[in-house]
């Protein structure tokens, strides 16, 4: 009997020669990420537990991205200051403030590596599974205990195998694939499971697309989402393939569930108000008027996403009544997008291009919506009130659908 990717990584991490779903194992996480909003609580819990020093400060990394630059003078600055306190008191040398979104930087900086175990205080941690890293979100108490002890228990997850084969249509992308999967699995269909993606569609997909899919798998409730490590992974992380090619499922691995799709059948999809798994295909919602478009987030703020949006917006202008906000996910992506002329294209098309941060996706400026207004975003959640008032409406789509819709002012099929 073979093993899933999740099982193989947990076996490597724990040194066990066999694991099975449901078993509890003690892991030694290779990377522990703390982001603002939780810096304050992590410091408090470390103190409550009486740790004077951390077992693994060299494995920790702090990002200030949700509240940086700050939004509210009353409460936000404390998270920033406590972030630096955490760094200074406990010798955590890796701290990044205002460089962009933590989940993007975790793989850009090569902190979350193929075949390793990573934990973070944020729910969208499965992102790095796009690079074959077993990664999952934890609470601040567990983060404090793990930093102090170097260990964290995990239950070995069952796995869902998701196979996609064939070639995606033009302007249909990773986001449409994961929205299709979410439509079928629903918001709890992946609970506590490892969602493992395979098939030639993913083999031909750029790393940015794999990160998009892993990121948004969390919306099905998964513990982690994983792609096998291949030549593209090795090139992205600048590692020899021979070191990481073990990060793939065995042919005879056992799955709790299997899903299969033909890439050619996948059409642009949108999450509609209000629930990520309220997914509808473009034909059902095209023509719906929108007031704002947001292109960015840890889901779809990559350089590839910027390119797709810029190619559609090139030489065009957004609808007169529509606000377009574009946020590259990191400073590195921002610089590249400037060099390649994408930022110029966005500005000429009428967009506001903002500094790299979580921004509107977590209800931070700029672009919050009012009652009855509709926003189409490339982010990952459309919970009630997340991007404005409780009566504002949120649609989620790929960058191509978002860019095409920004020009038309109504939800538009990017294949047309």
């Amino acid at each position: 009997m073979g093993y899933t990717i999740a099982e193989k990584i947990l076996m490597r991490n724990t040194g066990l020669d066999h694991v099975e779903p449901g078993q509890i194992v003690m892991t030694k996480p290779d990377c522990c990420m703390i982001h603002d909003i939780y810096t304050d609580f992590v410091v408090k819990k470390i103190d409550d537990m009486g740790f004077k020093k951390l077992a693994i400060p060299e494995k920790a990394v702090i990002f200030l991205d949700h509240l940086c630059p700050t939004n509210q003078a009353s409460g936000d600055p404390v998270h920033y200051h406590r972030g630096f306190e955490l760094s200074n008191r406990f010798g955590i040398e890796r701290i990044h403030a205002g460089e962009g979104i933590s989940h993007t930087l975790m793989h850009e900086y090569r902190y979350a590596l193929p075949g390793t175990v990573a934990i973070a205080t944020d729910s969208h941690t499965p992102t790095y599974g796009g690079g074959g890293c077993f990664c999952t979100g934890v609470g601040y108490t567990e983060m404090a205990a793990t930093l102090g002890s170097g260990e964290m228990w995990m239950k070995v997850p069952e796995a869902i195998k998701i196979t996609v084969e064939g070639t995606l249509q033009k302007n249909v992308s990773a986001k449409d694939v994961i929205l299709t999967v979410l439509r079928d699995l629903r918001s709890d269909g992946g609970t506590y499971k490892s969602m493992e993606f395979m098939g030639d569609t993913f083999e031909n997909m750029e790393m940015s697309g794999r990160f998009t899919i892993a990121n948004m798998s969390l919306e099905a409730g998964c513990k982690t989402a994983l792609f096998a490590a291949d030549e593209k992974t090795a090139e992205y992380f600048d590692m020899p393939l021979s070191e990481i090619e073990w990060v793939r499922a065995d042919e005879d691995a056992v799955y709790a569930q299997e899903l299969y799709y033909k890439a050619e059948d996948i059409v642009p999809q949108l999450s509609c108000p209000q629930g990520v798994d309220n997914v509808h295909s473009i034909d059902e919602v095209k023509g719906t008027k929108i007031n704002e478009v947001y292109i960015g987030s840890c889901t779809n703020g990559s350089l590839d996403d910027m390119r797709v949006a810029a190619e559609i917006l090139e030489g065009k202008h957004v609808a007169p009544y529509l606000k377009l906000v574009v946020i590259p996910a990191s400073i590195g992506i921002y610089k590249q997008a400037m060099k390649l002329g994408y930022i110029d294209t966005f500005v000429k098309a009428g967009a506001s291009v903002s500094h790299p941060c979580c921004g509107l996706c977590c209800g931070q400026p700029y672009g919050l919506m009012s009652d009855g207004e509709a926003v189409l975003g490339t982010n990952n959640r459309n919970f009630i009130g997340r991007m404005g008032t409780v009566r504002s409406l949120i649609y989620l789509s790929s960058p191509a659908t978002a860019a095409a819709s920004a020009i038309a002012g109504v939800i538009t099929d990017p294949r047309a």
Partner: protein
Amino acid sequence: MEYSFSGRIWKLPDDVDTDTIIPGRYGVLPTAKEMSKHCLEPLRPELASTARPGDIFVAGKNFGCGSSREFAPECIKALGVNCIIAKSFARIFYRNGINNGMFLIECDDVYDECKEGDTLTVEVNKCIRVNGKEIAIKEMPENLFEIIKNGGLVEHYSKMNRQEG
């Protein structure tokens, strides 16, 4: 790490959610002890006043589903119930329960072998004995077992750090 304990069984159904374990309106009470007087009130109003320390819950599937409130396992623990055997647990309740020092055991076969009021014995990492039946359970790593015995993550590490001075 040989360790066993016995207790009287309370039987609970499938899908007991955290709002049933501790209704939201009691979440404002100052301590888990006070909250525990209302534990499982909507389902079993007599339970909180008649449960004894050392009692064991045997439940169906998906125990602790719903809202992620951390005081759901805390108030069960405050009743003196430190072990729940269920067909399955909701993920967040499971982590919160274990990190609060409770023995949460996933096992399909206990439920049909016992009735409320029976006595059950848990031999940690080996088996559950009830009504003459012996049902095997999965092993847990020794260091996690220590965390549970010490009362949870915060207590475990405070104790360890105090000892190290």
